[in-house]
């Protein structure tokens, strides 16, 4: 394959192309560079899985909150101040000793931005998207997550505008931890359902 042929699919360095596109669009009045700064800053520093971890920790310590979260997740999440696009309609699904939930978007990359931020590369990858539905237990094993044969695995394929957050199981031996300490245990991966929370 010639060097030129390579570059037919990606004609040039994306960094250069994005830079050229941005200056063209700024000149056209179609984008404001300050708006781009704010959007980047929001997802790099303000919105991310720490939000979801606080939601989960609250659900672990407050049964009434958990009940509201399972009934109307978007409102319960908004109670903690987390609202933004890609979270208007959210469903919280709870892991129990008999049910393990796993979230995927086989068609694209749907993900609950207000509670988890932007999705990691693996979540958007062909490998995860293709296999999570046909071989969820194999995918879980790849993440080092063992789920017993008699536990029901439920896979949620985000095909519409519903977004999903898994409420992982609270680990044993954490009854003396504060809500804040509990939130520190909750990982992004556990809220997608690929891993469990370790105590």
């Amino acid at each position, binding site marked *: 394959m010639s060097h030129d042929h390579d570059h037919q699919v990606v004609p040039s360095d994306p960094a250069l192309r994005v830079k050229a596109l941005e200056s063209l669009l700024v000149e056209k009045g179609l984008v404001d560079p300050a708006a781009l700064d*704010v*959007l*980047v800053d929001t997802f790099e520093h303000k919105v991310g899985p720490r939000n979801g971890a606080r939601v989960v920790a609250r659900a672990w310590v407050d049964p009434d909150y958990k009940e509201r979260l399972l009934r109307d997740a978007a409102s319960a999440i908004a109670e903690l101040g987390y609202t933004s696009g890609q979270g208007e309609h959210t469903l919280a699904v709870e892991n129990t000793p008999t049910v393990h939930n796993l979230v995927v978007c086989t068609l694209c990359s749907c993900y609950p931005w207000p509670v988890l931020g932007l999705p990691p590369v693996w979540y958007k990858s062909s490998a995860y998207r293709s296999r999570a539905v046909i071989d969820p237990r194999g995918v879980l094993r790849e993440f080092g997550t063992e789920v017993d044969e008699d536990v029901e695995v439920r896979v949620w394929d985000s095909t519409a505008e519903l977004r999903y957050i898994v409420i992982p199981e609270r680990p044993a031996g954490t009854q003396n931890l504060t809500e804040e300490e509990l939130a520190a245990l909750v990982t992004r991966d556990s809220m997608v359902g690929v891993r469990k929370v370790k105590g």
Partner: protein
Amino acid sequence: MNGIHDMGGMQDMGPIQYEKDEPVFHAVWEGRIYGINASLMRNWNLDAWRYQIELLPPAEYLQLSYYERWLRINEQLLVKHSLITAAELAAGVVEPGSAKATPTLTAAAAMKRLGRGLPPSDDPKVAPQFEVGQRVRARNINPTGHTRLPRYARGKAGAIARDHGAYTFPDSNALFLGEKRQHVYSVRFAARELWGEQASPRDSMYLDLWDDYLERA
């Protein structure tokens, strides 16, 4: 469209590449195209945007990184919707006499838009066609346009697990043919209904499906 994007159930895509302590953006340009994309979305809609990605030829779709796809389809949508010309895109400079958009999307407006939300789903004017507990079958349709009914569920039987209320129908909205609002349900399919005996008898898949994707089973 039966495109490469509809990859649920495909095999041989390799191991899942997990990056520890992954940054939100891997390069400055990824953040910039994220912001450009968010700023431009008001000129089309999310369904038309998804359809544009699906229109990438399969080999190109697989070869491009996630944000390279975003770059590619934003370039395409800008030209398609006459916001820039192909010549401007190629040269990177505005043609003389070209109109300037007013008003420019400001930072405040971009953030407001990000949090603007979807229309409410509890619309009493849109009646559900199915009820919770009912047995349904995903229709065997193969539209060449945009659809959110994955191939792996077509023709398969399941049950309505939850009614989520009324939503815009992506198949028509992607082509700017109207919102055609209708109910969306979580539909539960037994893993064995979808994948046969190799699947665990305990497992299940839940898909969010619109009225028009379903028929009585």
